[in-house]
């Protein structure tokens, strides 16, 4: 972890104040940075969207339930991994949670070691997601500056075509293709074609490479 990385938050959402308080104490005892919320609404209103961290979430909650909150975070393109902590997790709910990318699914009462391990795991996963997410966002930003023609050319290059082939395909001269190619390489911040393909795969932009 670089020194510049901010301290991650562990958010805990549970409607039982006693449980909330106990989990908060446990996590503080291992030096974690804890913020507690009695309801999903309170969490959504107040959590820091820019800070790294993870979410320890009860399943049965008033208003939005745990699964619904997970869905909202998904839509917000949040990088917060979710550790479910529930009283009676039935299989259907746990499958749902895992399908939507839950970091873990624990049942109460939870042993400290298990909970802390799950949180550590979720935090590191959160860091990776953030990094990946940050990269993807940068690529997406660059990709957004490309013109329509440049995007077409991008797709052809990634598909492994030669300039001559691309020119024939798009009905342009080879010279024009070279011009577009140089521009888009500059805009995307890459020097060699191999990097460009890498970017396209990671960010899911351009055309899917033909195997």
């Amino acid at each position: 972890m670089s020194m510049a990385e901010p301290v991650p938050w562990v958010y805990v959402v549970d409607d039982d104040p006693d449980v909330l308080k106990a989990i908060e104490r446990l996590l503080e005892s291992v030096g974690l940075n804890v913020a507690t919320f009695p309801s999903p609404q309170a969490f959504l209103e107040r959590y820091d969207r820019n800070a790294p961290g993870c979410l320890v979430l009860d399943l049965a909650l008033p208003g939005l339930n745990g699964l619904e909150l997970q869905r909202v975070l998904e839509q917000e393109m949040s990088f917060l991994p979710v550790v479910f902590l529930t009283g009676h997790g039935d299989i259907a709910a746990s499958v749902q949670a895992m399908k939507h990318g839950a970091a873990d699914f624990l049942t109460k009462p939870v042993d400290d070691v298990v909970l802390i391990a799950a949180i550590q795991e979720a935090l590191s996963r959160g860091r990776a997601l953030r990094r990946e997410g940050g990269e993807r966002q940068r690529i997406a930003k660059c990709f957004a500056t490309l013109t329509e023609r440049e995007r077409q050319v991008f797709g052809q290059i990634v598909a492994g075509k030669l300039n001559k082939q691309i020119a024939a395909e798009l009905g342009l001269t080879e010279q024009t293709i070279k011009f577009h190619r140089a521009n888009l390489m500059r805009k995307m911040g890459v020097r060699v074609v191999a990097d460009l393909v890498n970017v396209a795969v990671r960010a899911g932009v351009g055309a899917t490479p033909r195997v």
Partner: protein
Amino acid sequence: MIAASLTLGVIHVFVWVKRRSQYAHLLFFALALSAAIFGAFELAMMRAQSPAGYASELRWAHVPLTVGVLSVVWFVHFYFDAGRLWLAYAISGLRLVVLALNFMTGVNINFREISSLYHVMLWGGAVVSGPVGVANPWMLVAQVNNLLLFAFVADASITLWRRGDPDARRRATLVGGSLALCIIAAAALTSLITSGLAHAPTIVMPAVFLVVLAMGYELGWDVIAAAQLAARLRASEKRFRAVIEAVPSAILVVDDKGIITFANAQAEGLFGYPRTDLVAMPVEMLLPERTRVPHAALRQAYARDARARVMGAGRELSACRKDGGEIPVEVALSPMVTEQGLFILVSVVDITERRRLERETTRQRDEVAHLSRVAMLGELSGSLAHELNQPLTAILSNAQAAQRFLAQDPPRLDKLGEILTDIVKNDRRAGGVIQRLRSMLRKEEAQRHPLDLNEVVEESLRLMRSDLLNRQVVASAVLEEELPAVSGDRNQLQQVLLNVVINACDAMDGQEVDRQLLVHTQTTAQGNVEIRVADRGGGIPLADLERIFEPFVTTKVHGVGLGLAICRSIVEAHGGHLWATNNPDRGATLHCELPAQRL
């Protein structure tokens, strides 16, 4: 005729001796006696040898005649209960005047003098004497008196006849008719003989005897009727006793001093005393010792305002047997006012068996309620487990946090105090849930305690909290402050509430929005306590509003249909009502009304 008159007279004097108030019998005796004496004089007159003897005998014959007339007048007056009183006095007075004139004028009232006797042969060959002489002018007074007598009898008879009942009419005809005939016959005969128009013996006796017979018949009829009445009375009393003995309950008759005057066979069986002991025993002896004094006071109060009623309605009454055993009884009182004072007919029923059946019914209802409660708790097991899990989670995490704080170097002791406090609190919380569960699962007789229904509502919603969350039902409660307490079994009433709330949630299953549940408590206008549980589901079809409380009627796929039937039986056992209505906008409301506990 003389002998018959005498006999009839004597019979009635005996009747009169027994029944002093019946003057008719005495007067009849006087009449019969005077008729007999008059008959004797008449006989003597018929055998008279000289005019002087005849005259003297006729003169003296007027004495019984006067007594007879007076007897007739007053007999008619008393027996008919009719006739003009002034006329009766006038006749009586005038007749005495006639008697005086009889002795003061002429040889008697009929003749101034009798010159000779003639002899007449009657049928059968007997030769009797008749008078020849000058009529006494004062006889007019006697004739007027006869006329008045006739008028009096006729008037009284008509009055009697007009009363209309067959007995009175027969009496009027028979007695009145024979009297009238006798008066006319006697007066006519006397006039004819004294005026010398007819040569006949003075034979008034047959007419008088006719009267005596008619009156005797009537009076005898009365005596017979009285005897029949007495016989009927005896038969009726016999029937009364037979009925009283046949009645399945113990019957006592108690006088106004609380002394038993009659007891039937069932009373002997119920109280274990022989009838001879029961009669003359104070009724309080049949009560348990502790209630004897208050009962005597109650009995006296009852005697002041005696009305037929069931005693001690709604109270447990006990009777005490001879062997000291107490039995639960039901007592009905009905007063009988007689000439001898107030008597109270007490009917006592042993309700030991009824009580036993009631207890059995209660036991069975409690058992069914328990079974249904266990099944319902099974349904709620997830929610209940969650309610236990929460404090356990808090305890574990708190304890492990404490361990970690202690393991730090240096150990952080500042947090330990509040952590321990929270551990204790959550341990108690878990203990409370377990206790509630055990109490609801335990099979025990329903017990009545003062209950705050608000508390029951809050606790029920707490127990169901997780279930409500899982079903995404938003439950809210509007609870009236200072709600009066009700007397009830906490487990059973909680069962009712949980059941109703589960039903309300079921009604909103599969509904995307508006899953709201509202629980209200309030005091009704009658001072009862009402709990309303309103949902926002599909409501209840009108035809089912009442049917849902029948056993085995269910609208659910997996329901047995016993829940609401049992709930209703529980609420009714608490003296309350449970019913359903549909809300004006949507959904249904279950109402549970329970009587507030009287302070």
